[in-house]
């Protein structure tokens, strides 16, 4: 045994710290703690206002013990149907547009100019928050589900293209290479070499986006883009917390059902 090894044996071992220089390590930690304290000190709480608000909050929570599905059942039904139509239509359209954009945004599949263009589209879609897009589209197309449908389609493109493109970029190169070596054209190469590898992820993401779109459709109603959100907003305005509770319970149930469905589908396509 050599002497170097002898010297190491019997000594303890500690994982090397992430930041090597000790002064920098402690400075960063101290800075973080100082920021945290300062941040908490700037939070301004009006305790009298909180006390008043608690009463209203209590009413809202209590409404969940007696949700009223009946007295506004017509409105709730119409809102739900509108939301579901919006969700499904926006998801289908959004996913259909996302797939070619995702291919374009994957560096290992697309040439640089196409890559940059597609990444640009994704960046724009992701930079604009749904509510802002909805307000803009409501201004253009007027109140109603059309604006909601367009908003959700637009948001789906940013979400799905980005995640799918990343999955394409991390695929197994050799499998795709083997297909290319057979003399396959580009479209065949995508169909045989790439698509089978990313299919489970595409299906999983699509189901997840369907779920998100449904939840978003409840928010979009608040800015006039139709759906169950409009009904929810009206019931809040009228202080009908029991109807609002009924709507929220329905949303929760539908989201849970979608979650369950997506679990089954993803297990099937592994």
């Amino acid at each position, binding site marked *: 045994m050599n002497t170097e090894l002898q010297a190491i044996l019997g000594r303890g071992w500690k994982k090397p710290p992430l930041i090597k220089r000790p002064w920098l390590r402690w400075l960063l930690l101290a800075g973080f703690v100082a920021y945290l304290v300062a941040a908490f000190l700037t939070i301004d709480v009006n305790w009298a206002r909180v006390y008043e608000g608690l009463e209203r909050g209590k009413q809202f929570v209590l409404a969940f013990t007696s949700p009223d599905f009946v007295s506004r059942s017509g409105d709730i039904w119409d809102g739900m149907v509108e939301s579901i139509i919006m969700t499904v239509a926006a998801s289908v359209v959004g996913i259909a547009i996302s797939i070619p954009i995702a291919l374009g945004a994957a560096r290992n599949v697309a040439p640089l100019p196409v890559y940059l263009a597609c990444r640009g589209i994704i960046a724009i879609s992701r930079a604009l928050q749904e509510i802002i897009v909805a307000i803009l589209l409501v201004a253009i197309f007027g109140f109603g589900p059309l604006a909601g449908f367009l908003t959700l389609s637009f948001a789906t493109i940013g979400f799905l293209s980005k995640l799918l493109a990343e999955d394409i970029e991390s695929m197994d190169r050799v499998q795709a290479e083997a297909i290319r*070596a057979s003399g396959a*054209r580009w479209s065949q190469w995508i*169909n045989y070499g790439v698509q089978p590898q990313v299919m489970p992820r595409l299906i999983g993401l699509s189901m997840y986006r369907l779920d998100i779109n449904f939840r978003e459709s409840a928010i979009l109603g608040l800015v006039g883009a139709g759906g169950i959100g409009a009904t929810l907003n009206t019931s809040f305005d009228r202080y009908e917390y029991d109807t609002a509770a009924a709507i929220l319970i329905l949303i929760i149930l539908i989201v849970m059902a979608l979650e369950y469905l997506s679990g089954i589908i993803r297990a099937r396509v592994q």
Partner: protein
Amino acid sequence: MLRLEKLTKTYKTGDQALKSVDLDIPEGQVLALIGPSGAGKSTLIRCINRLVEPTSGQVFLGGTELTHLSAGALRRERRRMGMIFQEYALVERLTVMENVLSGRLGYVGFWRSFLRRFPQPDVDEAFRLLDRVGLLAMADKRADELSGGQRQRVGICRALIQNPAVLLVDEPTASLDPKTSRQIMRLICELCRERGLAAIINIHDVALAQMFVQRVIGLRFGAIEFDGPPKDLTPDVLTTIYGEEDWEATIETVEDDEDIEAAE
């Protein structure tokens, strides 16, 4: 049949993987390419069908020069070069049959392949090949359900259904046990003989190469160090290719192996 002239590949990092390689392979010759890891064996094979673009030099397949072909013409020439990969490179989520038929992609149009409606002769040939390698019963299994040796047989079928003039074989036995390795090598060499195919086989296992091929090329640092029949691979030659090591054992095992083979 396949001729390389001054083939050179320099990677962006500045590494010279191939230094002006000249090589001529006559029709029907099976050739083993040996050499240490990083000697440029994989690069050499991939420069032929341009999965890696060579920096300079020329590759002739039959009368066609490959390095300057347009994308479309290159696809047509790739049909004549079947490739067999290390770690099989099957598309794991496709069935065995789809994997084999993917060898025909260069011949069929997009919609036909998309709808999986391959011409009947292709389908028949796929079944014949699967039967030849003993995997007919596995046709509808997914590729990831197969064992290593079985997967490599599917890889062989995929290459052969292209009806190639030459096989490019990259470490076919790298992740297989010794017995399966031999079976795969024997299968590849038999099929080449049956069909009069030329083949370049990259291989780490010198003893295995000596057992099956007619000609051995030794590559070191991207240049050819040895070119001759397997029996000329002496310890001295192996030392020039791989560096200093006790080679007697390697070569002796070959002879032992051959005795065992004969006894079987």
